């Protein structure tokens, strides 16, 4: 041991200090540079390639250029988005970990289980919201007599429970909007759950159901081919502008229009949040990107004003509060 001590005397000490300082200097995170100075992780709680994931990737591509840093999109779909939400809610409040999600998904979780580790109101702050980013459309077969919502309601009143609608998994807007319609029109329609839009359309084409709820983008080719007709949409569709909304046809209650949002953990430093918000807004409104998104069927209605976003978040919570936890698919065991 004493040999060691001698060895570390004299010039050796100086060299050690210099080496230590250089290592110190080479570690970027120990500097305090302006935000952002390292890659940002965007956790998307939807499966890769899907409607939600795609819009985030398209925006992230341009956003990375404007922020002059890399944005790593990571998909984390486990636990129906709960794992992704928890991860971001618990992340360091430095703006380098963000959540890209369907606002309704986090709202659903928070309504059904307010005490969960990731509560929309308590643990997140909105950075940017794309209001009504895509439309959900109710489809019918072109060869049937029922072409409008009025016809549908009339038929349903004549034969309660007879009409079958293909809906999505429990708790999604594909399913819940039919519930809202049933409540508003006071009719009995049978909801048949499937895993998503594509299955619904497949079964509709095959004649196994009378109607189907689907995303407008998935429905468009079939409407164009003349096999299916659009009966109603929940928000004006960019790809199918001719289809009237539920509201226009007398049912404004059917309004679970989906928004996607960039969320950060609550308590981000104001400067950081402002940078993110401003750059995202600027990016989303670039003509080229906007055109690109619109041609994919996305509505680009970006909201970044603080008051506006908070109101939207609250509205989302209220919309989903109309349902029981069972409806939302989060019944406690």
């Amino acid at each position, binding site marked *: 041991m004493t040999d060691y001590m001698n060895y570390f005397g004299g010039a050796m000490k100086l060299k050690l200090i210099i080496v230590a300082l250089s290592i110190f200097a080479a570690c970027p995170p120990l500097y305090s540079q302006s935000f952002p100075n390292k890659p940002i992780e965007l956790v998307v709680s939807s*499966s*890769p*390639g*899907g409607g939600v*994931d*795609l819009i985030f*990737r*398209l925006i992230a*591509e341009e956003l990375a250029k404007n922020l002059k840093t890399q944005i790593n*999109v*990571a*998909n*984390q*779909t*486990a*636990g*129906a988005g*709960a*794992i992704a939400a*928890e991860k971001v809610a618990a992340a360091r409040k430095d703006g380098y970990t963000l959540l890209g999600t369907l606002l309704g998904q986090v709202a659903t979780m928070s309504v059904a289980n307010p005490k969960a580790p990731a509560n929309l109101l308590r643990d997140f702050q909105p950075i940017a919201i794309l209001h009504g980013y895509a439309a959900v459309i109710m489809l019918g077969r072109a060869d049937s007599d029922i072409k409008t919502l009025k016809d549908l309601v009339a038929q349903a009143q004549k034969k309660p*429970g007879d009409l*079958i609608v293909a809906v999505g*998994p*429990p*708790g999604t807007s594909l399913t819940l909007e039919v519930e809202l319609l049933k409540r508003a029109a006071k009719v009995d329609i*049978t909801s*048949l*759950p*499937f*895993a998503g839009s*594509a*299955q619904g*359309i*497949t*079964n509709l*084409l*095959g*004649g*196994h*159901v009378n109607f189907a709820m689907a995303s407008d*983008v*998935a429905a*468009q*080719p*079939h409407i*164009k*081919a003349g*096999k299916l007709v659009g009966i109603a949409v929940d928000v004006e569709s960019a790809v199918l502008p001719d289809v009237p909304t539920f509201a226009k046809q007398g049912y404004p209650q059917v309004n679970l229009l989906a928004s996607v949002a960039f969320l950060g953990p609550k308590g981000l430093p104001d400067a950081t949040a402002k940078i993110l918000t401003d750059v995202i807004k600027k990016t989303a409104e670039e003509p080229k990107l906007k055109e690109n998104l619109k*041609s*994919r069927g996305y509505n680009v209605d970006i909201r970044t004003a603080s008051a506006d976003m908070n109101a939207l978040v609250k509205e989302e919570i209220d919309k989903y509060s109309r349902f029981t936890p*069972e*409806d*939302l*698919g*989060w*019944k*406690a*065991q």
Partner: protein
Amino acid sequence: MATLDALTQGIFIAASPLNLLYGFLGVLLGTLVGVLPGLGPAGAIALLLPLALHAPPLAYLIMLFGITYGAQYGGSTTSILVNIPGEASSVITCLDGYAMARQGRAGPALGIAAFGSFIGGTISIFGLAYLAPALAEFGLHFGPPEYAALMLFGLTALVYLAHGAMDKAILMALFGILLASVGLDPVTGQPRFTFDILVLRDGVGLTPVVIGLFGISEVLVNLRSEAGEIFQKKITGLLPTSEDWKDSAMPIARGTILGFLVGAIPGLNVVIATFAAYALEKKVSKHPEKFGRGAIEGVAAPETANNAASCSGWIPLLSLGLPTGSVTSLIFGALLIHGLAPGPLFIKNSPEIFWGVLGSMVIGNVLLLILNLPLIGLWIKVLQVPYFFLFPLIILFGIIGAYTTSGTTGDVVIMIIFGVVGYLMRKFAYEPAPMVLGLVIGPLLETAIRRSMIMSKGSVAIFFQRPIAAFFMSAALLMLLSPLLTRRRIGHEIIEKLEET
């Protein structure tokens, strides 16, 4: 004739230098992804999504498609070498493929797998080219009652999968079905058996279970042995012998047809095609007791079927624009990115894309064969590494595979649990294959039946009133009753029971 012309045109388009390059990258990446458990084609395609915005459309699509069928080639490699399925569709290959490896016949196994994949994939492309629209229309007739009947028929294939005690096999299948109900109920959204554990809400995934059940348990069982005992030192040749070829010819033929048909039905997993092909081979074989102990038919048929099915699986997407699974959804998304709306008019509106992709598949299958054959020699070398070096790698491999399924620790824990379960199962003579069958078919059967009940408002008659459903129900009943009718099978069972006690 027009179809053949179009396909030839497509091959020429796909053979352009740029497309060839992307194609090669695609199949290379696909093989890699197939070899690695947990990382599936869906994951790889997702990684490449950013590229979509920069690459030329056809080349990019060729690459993506290359990944998907390339994965079906690679999946069999680890199944045969270390009993870990690289893809869920390679589970069945573990049964006989690994047994062959232990007998020093890994080379022939890998070779037949490669050739079978090539033949199945290539013929399937022609099937797709000629039959896609017609099959797509036919596929639309499958609603929930038809699926229910079909799944029931599939379950009865179980009868031919077990080579041990029948009652234990049925018990394993039921256990698989029970396990599959962990998670959210697909119809009502209620959590079942989740004990408030968040990761269980998605259910017990197939991949971690299979890695644990087959791969990890294999390591646990071999811990005490020296390397020489596990893999026979004497390697009997790197390529299949002429006898292997003779034995595999019909299984490959049957596997192609069966795989193609099963894959064409929208929503049916490629895994099901492999189970069906294996069961068929076992049923028509003159020596069914060899299955599970290194029968080359047990490798040839499933490997052919999975490539055929993966190819025909594109029919619903390309003919009707309907994605039927995670991989097809990704390709759907990729098509959207380039403004190509897949739909009923896709083939008409974008023929150069459609035929270019098909042409690329022909080229891709050839590339894969050329790629995989020389690698066999390399893989054989891997098996000769001393086991004490090999087993940590296998375990690491399994853990990474399980983790990358969903990015949570939960899947690794599930893998470990099923590693232990698999170990105990081997000791107590319970078979894993029926359990996997139950795990895969169970949920499909359940949702199909429950949806049918919703449609029929509670009447069971719906299964017998619709022609296709009635057909499969009768077929299922026939399957169930036939072993009882066959004297040979009854004799078999009695002898086994006597031997057991």
